[in-house]
């Protein structure tokens, strides 16, 4: 699929398989996450059989995080990555959990407070496309399962590049394209049949999980995303396929 197809046309974009007006997508995505926020963590564990925790762990490993660093967990939602980072950067470091959605941020805030993580975390409601931070602010930026929900992904990548310090790195954890044909088939069956049914059963919300499955298919594949990162200015871009390419972790540096 070409990049143009991924980002839609000038005035329209994708919301799952639907084509919608660009302005409309933001509020539609917002509705999805307002509606799933409360059950988000349970559903995440259920849908991925807990493997999302290992994908996130791998992201932390690839970030090479050190005590004292400043980290932006963008589209951080309920703050899984923020928690992992917060413990590692310690009191001399800082983690900012940024998300466009207030409901997700609130669930995140409560969860992190319950874990006793308060001192080095700040919360910011922000759109990835126009980050409200100064140039060269962060050592590490992560965006996990967030980029595919963003309307203008290129603008978001440019914005991340701007706020990253020289020498800093971006990690994009996102659903991608399975590398094996058989896995693709099983995965399709799982996401289009089982996932919406599970959404209905557990969260009483079939549509949000239908959107999830569709948005995954519309997201750029491994090489396209790598190219998009390069176009935004990132150097030494590379990716690792995880769990047969169901998920990929992309990494790029700002030099």
């Amino acid at each position, binding site marked *: 699929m070409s990049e143009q197809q991924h980002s839609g046309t000038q005035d329209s974009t994708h919301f799952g398989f639907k084509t919608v007006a660009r302005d409309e997508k933001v509020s539609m995505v917002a509705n999805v996450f307002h509606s799933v926020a409360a059950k988000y963590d349970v559903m995440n564990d259920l849908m991925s059989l807990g*493997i999302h*925790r*290992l*994908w996130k*762990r*791998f992201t*932390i*490993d*690839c970030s*090479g*995080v*050190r*005590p*004292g660093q400043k980290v932006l967990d963008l589209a951080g939602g309920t703050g899984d990555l923020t928690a992992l980072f917060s*413990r*590692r950067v*310690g*009191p*001399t470091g800082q983690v900012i959990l940024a998300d466009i959605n207030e409901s997700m941020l609130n669930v995140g805030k409560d969860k992190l407070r319950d874990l*006793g993580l308060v001192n080095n975390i700040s919360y910011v409601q922000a759109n990835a496309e126009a980050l409200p931070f100064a140039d060269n602010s962060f050592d590490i930026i992560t965006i996990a399962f967030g980029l595919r929900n963003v309307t203008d992904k290129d603008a978001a990548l440019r914005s991340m590049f701007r706020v990253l310090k020289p020498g800093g790195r971006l990690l994009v954890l996102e659903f991608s394209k399975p590398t094996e044909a058989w896995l693709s088939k099983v995965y399709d069956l799982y996401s289009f049949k089982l996932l919406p049914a599970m959404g209905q059963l557990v969260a009483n919300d079939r549509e949000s999980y239908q959107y999830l499955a569709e948005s995954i298919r519309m997201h750029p594949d491994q090489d396209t995303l790598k190219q998009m990162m390069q176009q935004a200015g990132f150097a030494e871009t590379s990716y*690792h396929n*995880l*769990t*047969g390419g169901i998920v990929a972790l992309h990494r790029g540096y700002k030099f």
Partner: protein
Amino acid sequence: MLKLLLPGLLCTVAEKVLNPVIGMDPDAHTRLNRLQGKQFAVRLRGIPLRLVFTAQQNGIWLNSHDEPVDCSISADLSALQQLSDPSQLTRLIREDKLQIDGDLQTLQQFSQFFQQLNPDWQERLSIYLGDAMAHKATNGIQLLQRSIRQYLQQSDHNLRELAQDELRLTPVAAEVQQFSQDVSAVAARTELLQRQLAGLLSQSRAFA
């Protein structure tokens, strides 16, 4: 397919075991404060995994990566067991069983921290079992700890004996000495032979 994710699983499990144990040692946090912000990495030879320990006020956090840290060691499993004895370090390095990069003090601080870890099992168990049962259980745990330590020491000794006597993999000191004496003797005999040959050659030339 899960190869990249296994180190993460290992680190998660290790953190889940280690940090509650640290939490049971009332003095651990003061000692952790001294280590705070330090990173230490271990690579066990023969295993494609480098474990990075990050010390913070609230515990020790594990990762697996190849990035620079304050101190990094690469060692054999047997060398790792002997790390607690600082007098062994030079020998281990000389024998190429241990390689250290970075700040030696960080290594010693981490090593000391783990040696001094002394969880108060009784205090924690009494919450669940009541004081009397907790006391019994703690005695049991201490006995188990002693037996495990003894077993490890014994098996280390046995392994060394097995390697030296049965499998003859590693020489004992006396053997090394004998070997070098033998080498010197062979060298001396070769020299003598060389001299005799030279003599014989010059004699045969005189006859020719």
